[in-house]
């Protein structure tokens, strides 16, 4: 059976919607598509190090069930036969949920999949494995001392970004058509930027986090990575819905976006983020933002008030909630952590409580100020990262003559946004030699607007997921 309906001539995946149509039309079987994904993983993962677990038997079984349903004339979902993988903080039945750690390998295997995995498989998608990540998601690099670094498919000497590093590498490197990750302070948007793919961090509370390993309950979001905006939308729609097993998950009705993508964006009020978001940028980040704002006809900046303080408050809440989560493990197994993660968490355990309360009160104030901004604009454009992917192991870079620590600096433009749970689509701008992302930010619960703007940028050839040179 030919794979032409699901693979482009350069070996990259065709969009998920095309793959599902080909499977439903019996032009290719779900099993053949799954085998193609498994072959790609076997060939490229030894270098990319995106996968920590490949669920070969499960994937083949799932694919056979889909093929049998199609043969019997039964309905299958919009992702029929589309392979995908998840960051290894999602529960996958039969696997211990590593969350990037060595410690969690000692936990019993999960007995049930995470809600989002269940929903995607109900839509016909085929889980093929679990993906590498920074330890306990406290990471912007994609490096991992226990399992080795995820490697950037556009230059394997560079970082994928983190903490969803394997998700970025697996989709950027075309091992799978799409993947899931998590974003607490930027962990979907940073790998999307560095690996040249589309990423959606929905509104806080939009998608269920049930049966995923947490980091910072106040900020944790789950979301998809894909190679096109339409794929992001289809995947997102398949995952929406209330879930009583996640206390933060909204009870709002499902708001599908896939059918809305082509709507005209001419009436939208679009501005660029000024001030804080115009500082500390490498030329590539400036160029990417300039291309996007020019294409959208943006003529004005808006200022997110006190963005630097918002980032500081996000930093404080993250380290304290992270420390609280891991307190017992810090007491009993300190030597089994990545030392860099452990030492940040130990410090987080020592922050006086009133300062944390102040940060949560500041968060409420900042939210009200930013929501006020959204009365006069619909979309805010901002850089996703200050730079293209740094080299693996790189500790510092020099910006405007000042040496800055890489790890702490990567998330400076993402943290003030996730701090108040705003939805963001990160679009890849295919600069040469390395891509870089731009954030399309909108008001809570308006993922539809951000996706429409991203779709327009993709169809204007300003944003796209470039083929990986490594492949």
């Amino acid at each position, binding site marked *: 059976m030919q794979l032409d309906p699901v693979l482009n001539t350069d070996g990259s995946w065709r969009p998920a919607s095309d793959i599902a149509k080909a499977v439903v039309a019996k032009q290719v079987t779900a099993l053949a598509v799954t085998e193609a994904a498994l072959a790609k993983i076997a060939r490229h993962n030894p270098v990319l190090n995106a996968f920590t677990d490949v669920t070969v038997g499960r994937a083949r079984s799932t694919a056979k069930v889909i093929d049998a349903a199609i043969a019997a004339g039964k309905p299958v979902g919009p992702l029929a036969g589309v392979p995908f993988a998840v960051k290894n903080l999602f529960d996958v039945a039969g696997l211990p949920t590593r969350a990037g750690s060595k410690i969690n390998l000692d936990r019993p295997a999960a007995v049930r999949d995470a809600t989002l995995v269940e929903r995607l498989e109900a839509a016909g998608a085929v889980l093929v494995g679990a993906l590498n990540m920074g330890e306990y998601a406290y990471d912007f690099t994609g490096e991992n001392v226990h399992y080795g670094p995820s490697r950037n498919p556009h230059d394997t000497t560079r970082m994928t970004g983190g903490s969803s590093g394997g998700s970025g590498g697996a989709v950027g490197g075309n091992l799978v058509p799409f993947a899931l990750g998590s974003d607490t302070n930027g962990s979907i948007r940073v790998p999307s930027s560095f690996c040249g793919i589309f990423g959606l961090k929905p*509104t806080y509370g939009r998608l269920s986090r049930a049966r995923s390993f947490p980091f910072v309950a106040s900020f944790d979001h789950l979301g998809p990575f894909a190679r096109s905006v339409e794929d992001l939308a289809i995947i997102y729609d398949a995952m929406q819905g209330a879930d009583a097993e996640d206390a933060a998950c909204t009870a709002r009705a499902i708001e599908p976006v896939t059918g809305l993508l082509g709507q005209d964006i001419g009436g939208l009020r679009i501005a660029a983020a000024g001030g804080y978001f115009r500082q500390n940028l490498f030329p590539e980040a400036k160029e990417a933002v300039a291309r996007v704002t020019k294409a959208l006809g943006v003529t004005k900046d808006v200022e997110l008030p006190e963005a630097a303080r918002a980032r500081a408050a996000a930093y*404080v809440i993250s380290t304290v909630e992270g420390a609280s989560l891991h307190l017992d493990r810090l007491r009993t197994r300190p030597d089994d952590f990545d030392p860099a993660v452990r030492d940040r968490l*130990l410090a987080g355990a020592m922050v006086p409580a009133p300062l944390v309360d102040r940060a*949560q*009160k500041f968060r409420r104030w900042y939210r009200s100020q930013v929501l006020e901004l959204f009365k006069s604009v619909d979309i805010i454009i901002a850089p996703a990262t200050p730079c293209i992917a740094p080299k693996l192991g790189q500790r510092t870079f020099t910006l405007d003559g000042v040496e800055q620590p890489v790890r702490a600096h990567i998330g400076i433009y993402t943290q003030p946004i996730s701090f108040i749970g705003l939805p963001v689509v990160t679009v890849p701008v295919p600069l040469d030699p390395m891509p870089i992302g731009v954030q399309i930010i909108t008001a809570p619960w308006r993922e539809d607007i951000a996706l429409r703007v991203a779709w327009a940028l993709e169809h204007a050839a300003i944003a796209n997921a470039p083929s990986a040179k490594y492949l």
Partner: protein
Amino acid sequence: MTDRLDSYIDAVSATLDLPIDDACRPAVRANLDVTLKMARMVDEFPLPDATEPATIYAA
């Protein structure tokens, strides 16, 4: 501040029953110093008394 921060780390470590190995103490101290600077940035910002925390959060 050096002595006060070291003493503070000792006191919290004992109170929380959270041992800090000597080898990692300099890194913990450096991280705490950065975190407290961040917290101070937030603390300096005046907020009305009636401001609610965002602990239970809905976007």
